[in-house]
């Protein structure tokens, strides 16, 4: 089967690709049509499973006709951004400090294990009670949710540095800063980026939970209100919006990862290599001129 596919790909790759895409679209349209039909014929309760056409109408309404989603999106994404930035700075900083220091690491480890086992989002009601309603407690929740993945990943990235390389650098007389810059960071950055990716997706979950509990504004509150009013089509439209945001976050972080940890992929390595070669060449020319 696999051989047949590769052979076909070799001979007529484009048409195969097109046929696959057509099948994808076909399956998708069939599913949607079945769903619509089910809703039309009354097999699916419209209160619980709104028809795709109803969801499309809601999209139009919440984005353009009424346009009420923009404000909530703005509020929620602002909180996500603030909490994510604060949480990941804290996480990476603490992770690096703890990872570089064996004593701190040993004494902190049991607490990290305990905190990892706790469902982080569960702290949300506590933080709201302690910090009061409003943006502060929401940001604190997101910060807490965002803190762990970068912290743990930075820690393991820093700890898992290759011993032999470390010894080589030491024996060549590298300073601590040089070891950090030339050995530890390059090895840790991909792992840290993976942590950041996790953190950003959990930030989105964090803001939703905070808004489910506080119920004042934001996309989470919007979903909750629509569901309470049994306006399921609009609730679905909001969730599909979140799917889109999640997808953008996923793709964006992937791009960023390729850009920052350029030595992990061919294209990035070539791009930076060419730039450095050019810079080096101009520097050489400048020297020979002078």
């Amino acid at each position, binding site marked *: *089967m696999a051989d047949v596919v590769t052979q076909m790909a070799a001979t007529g790759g484009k048409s195969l690709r097109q046929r696959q895409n057509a099948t994808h679209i076909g399956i998708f349209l069939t599913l949607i049509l079945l769903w619509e039909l089910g809703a039309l014929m009354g097999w699916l309760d419209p209160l619980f499973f709104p028809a795709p056409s109803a969801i499309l109408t809601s999209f139009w309404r919440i984005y353009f006709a009424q346009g009420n989603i923009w404000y909530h999106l703005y509020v929620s994404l602002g909180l996500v951004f603030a909490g994510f930035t604060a949480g990941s700075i804290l996480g990476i900083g603490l992770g690096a400090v703890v990872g570089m220091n064996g004593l701190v690491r040993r004494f902190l480890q049991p607490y990290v294990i305990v905190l990892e086992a706790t469902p982080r*989002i*569960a702290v949300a009601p506590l933080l709201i009670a302690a910090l009061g309603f409003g943006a502060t407690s929401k940001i604190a929740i997101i910060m807490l949710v965002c803190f762990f993945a970068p912290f743990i990943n930075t820690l393991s990235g820093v700890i898992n540095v290759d011993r032999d390389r470390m010894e080589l650098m030491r024996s060549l007389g590298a300073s601590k800063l040089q070891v950090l810059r030339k050995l530890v960071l390059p090895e840790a950055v991909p792992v840290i980026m993976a942590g950041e990716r996790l953190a950003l997706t959990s930030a989105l979950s964090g803001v939703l939970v905070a808004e*489910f509990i506080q119920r004042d504004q934001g996309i989470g509150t919007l979903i909750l209100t629509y569901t309470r009013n049994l306006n399921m089509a609009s609730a679905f439209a909001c969730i599909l919006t979140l799917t889109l945001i999640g*997808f953008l*976050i996923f793709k964006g972080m992937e791009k960023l990862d390729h850009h920052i940890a350029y030595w992990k992929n061919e294209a990035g390595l070539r791009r930076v290599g060419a730039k450095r070669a050019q810079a080096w060449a101009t520097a050489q020319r400048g020297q020979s001129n002078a």
Partner: protein
Amino acid sequence: MHEPRDFLFWPARVLPHLALLVALLGLWEWAVASGSVDTIMVPRPSAIMAAIFELYVTKGSIYQHFFITLAEAVFGFLIGAGVAIALAVSSSLSENFERYVSPYAVVLNVTPGIALTPIIIAWFGYGMGSKIALAAVICFFPIFVNTLTGLRQTDPDREELFRSFGASRRQVFTQLRVPAALPLMFAGLKIGLTTALIGAVVAEFAQATAGVGVLMSRFSFALDMASSLATLLSMTLIGLLLFYTMEFLDDRVVFWRRDARMSAVSRARARAWASGAEK
């Protein structure tokens, strides 16, 4: 570092940790008692202990909620893991199936599962059903991805060896692919189990009649922070319980990854083989 005889000196290893913990708690207690920290924001450690004692011993009111949340997380996990593994195995067996199913799995993944909470509650009601459903939805993806990745990453050389010995497709699958996939699969299951707990607790925050999440939001909104923290610690307990159960299973099933377990199993097998050969 962890030689067997280290066990004899375990007090020497644990004592510094214990001393640090006691010192921290003492400092905390003192800070609250001296009034430099607000008691409503941060309750005293002794008050938290008292709350734990009340919840677990004198009133014993937590057990019902504790087991409800535990059951929700476990059932949700079992359903989510079952579906995830079934889909991953089908995807690894059929390229077409994977091609046409995986886009939907990806869409499900980028959607924050927690956003579905209100809708799932509307679908499944205020009882345990909605919590189990949310736990299942949330824990699905890590298990699916890890199982699929594990099943796909077989060493081509080994596969060729299997083929050249005339192994059937079924043999390649059960004796080569599955064992190679198990470590990654268990990593996914471990993540999935903790996420399932998060799903259950979040659904309880949103709307529920019983469970640790409800208990906790009740305590926090009554500003009874000591009891609230005590409840949080019970969630940690559930999390640790689930995590170590999975770790234990991992150790048993994927025995070849740890040297000690590996030699124990191979000794047992050698003994069984020897006694079989005698007969």
